[in-house]
């Protein structure tokens, strides 16, 4: 009986706060028909926004894949002074509000900031341009890969790596043949989380973007602009793209969890 109540409450809550809004996005987007939907999605500014989002993902995720893997390995395998500081730093982007992140980048790379003038003099725009957006995305997605890997590496221990070295493997052979295969699903999971976060990032990117339509607007920023212009159909149409990537992320996540269980057995 109590179980049924808890289940019911959970179902109602999830329905109200997750499923209904999700359905509303698709409903709103298609309310004025497929023609309007298609026009909104293929609008040049919308396409440019999606492209910019993909560029930010394409740069930020591989960077954080390499950094996250390296940082996780260093933290899990070594004891050194400043180790706990490093762990805290990795978590910093989760603790700092994205808007504050954006402001930090303005302070450092803005024209009135510490290095902004130096870059400007050399013809490189950082804020209000693509580099700033990419930097902000790298920052907000930094923790995901490392946080997935650290507990797993610590749990697995380093005996397999030692065994590989004693059997004559070089450091690289050990990494490619033992370390990496052992964490591959967790690594992929971290990447998926990073992709999802990079695509959806609003606050930090909003501050450094400057909202130059068709040039420095990412998909979430473009949605906001359309919405503020009372172009609801357009806003919701672009929103469906983000919602679909989110659903894709969930599906990939479920597959991964299932794979991880399989290999664990």
């Amino acid at each position, binding site marked *: 009986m109590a179980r049924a109540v808890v289940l019911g409450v959970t179902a109602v809550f999830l329905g109200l706060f997750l499923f209904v809004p999700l359905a509303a996005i698709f409903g709103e987007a298609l309310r004025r028909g497929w023609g309007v939907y298609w026009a909104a999605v293929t609008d040049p500014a919308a396409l440019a926004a999606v492209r910019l989002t993909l560029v930010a993902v394409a740069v930020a995720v591989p960077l954080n894949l390499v950094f996250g893997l390296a940082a996780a390995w260093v933290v899990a395998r070594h004891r050194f002074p400043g180790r706990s500081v490093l762990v805290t730093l990795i978590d910093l982007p989760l603790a700092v509000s994205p808007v504050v992140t954006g402001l930090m980048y303005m302070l450092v790379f803005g024209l009135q900031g510490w290095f902004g003038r130096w870059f400007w003099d050399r013809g490189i725009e950082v804020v209000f341009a693509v580099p700033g957006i990419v930097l902000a995305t790298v920052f907000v997605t930094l923790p995901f890969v490392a946080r997935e890997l650290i507990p797993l590496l610590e749990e697995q221990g380093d005996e397999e790596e*030692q*065994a590989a070295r004693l059997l004559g493997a070089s450091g690289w052979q050990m990494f490619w043949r033992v370390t990496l295969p052992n964490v591959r699903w967790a690594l992929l999971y971290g990447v998926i989380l990073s992709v999802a976060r990079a695509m959806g990032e609003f606050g930090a990117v909003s501050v450094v973007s400057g909202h130059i339509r068709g040039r420095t607007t990412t998909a979430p920023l473009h949605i906001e602009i359309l919405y503020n212009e009372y172009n609801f159909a357009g806003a919701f149409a672009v929103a469906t793209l983000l919602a679909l990537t989110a659903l894709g992320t969930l599906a990939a996540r479920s597959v991964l969890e299932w794979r991880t269980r399989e290999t664990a057995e």
Partner: protein
Amino acid sequence: MSIEVRKVTKTFGNYVALREVSLEVKAGELVALLGPSGSGKTTLLRTIAGLEAPDAGGGEVLFEGRAFGDLPADERKVGFVFQHYALFRHMTVFENVAFGLRVRPKGVRPKEDEIRERVMALLKLIQMENLAGRRPGQLSGGQRQRVALARALAIEPRVLLLDEPFGALDARVRQDLRQWLRRLHDEMHVTSILVTHDQDEALEVADRIVVMNQGRVEQMGTPDEVFHRPATEFVMDFLGHVNLFHGRVESGRTVIGGVAVEAPGGPEGAAARVLVRPHQLQIERTAGGSESLRAKVERVQSAGPVVRIEVICETGERLRVDLSHDAFEQTPVQRGDEVFVKPREARVFLEDYTI
């Protein structure tokens, strides 16, 4: 390949794991490092394997008289078997065993069919040809341990190091595997060092035993030497159950209660600790002059290879006596009987120095 450990000291922070440990292992020998946990035996093994470095200026490990780094690549082959196997969990049994061959540099890497042949020969040796496609997670503990051993043997090691190889297994499986390991060693003659805390395992398998305690070597010798002529009280205590008596030196003999133990004495009146193994005590119905201790039988357990009798002496010491079934039949006793216990042999350790 012979191994020489020269005055190796290893500390972890404030903790001294090894204190100037020296030992030699002859080529083809199987040596057991025996000691309780915390005695430094695993640290010593890991130092020999190169997984730990001795402290700066804290001694060295030599192979055939040379430092490991000075050996030609062909001789730098150390097979190491981890206590918890450390099998590569994402690889099949076959790939685990093949690993050491596959990671060789191009020029010396065997061809694919040669690798297959050698791996299958090893799997046959450990009687697991049928399980080549399994992953470690699908194997029993004993099977994993055998795969770990095959993986270490695949690189044709000059030295084989085993860290508590049977520690995590059932008593029955342990027994089988250690006999198997001994036969294997007799066939291959790889210089081997085995770490264990199980004295039966060390006594059964090893050519020589190194007994360790608190980072030091207590005694080194053949199983017979360490068992029958223990150099210290620790060694005697660790290598099997002992009964302890507190005695005193009187006119060149050690005396416990009314019983004089034949042993060359120390200074008159010195306190002595007399250690007697359960099988070195005998039980008599009548007092044999001053040579026995009066005691009361507490418990008789005759199910087993020997009859185990617990008695309490009138001086309060609780003793364990192991009798053969034949001897027990000649003087059967039961709980509550008054008997006289007589040590046939004893080892006497005086305070501060030993005899």
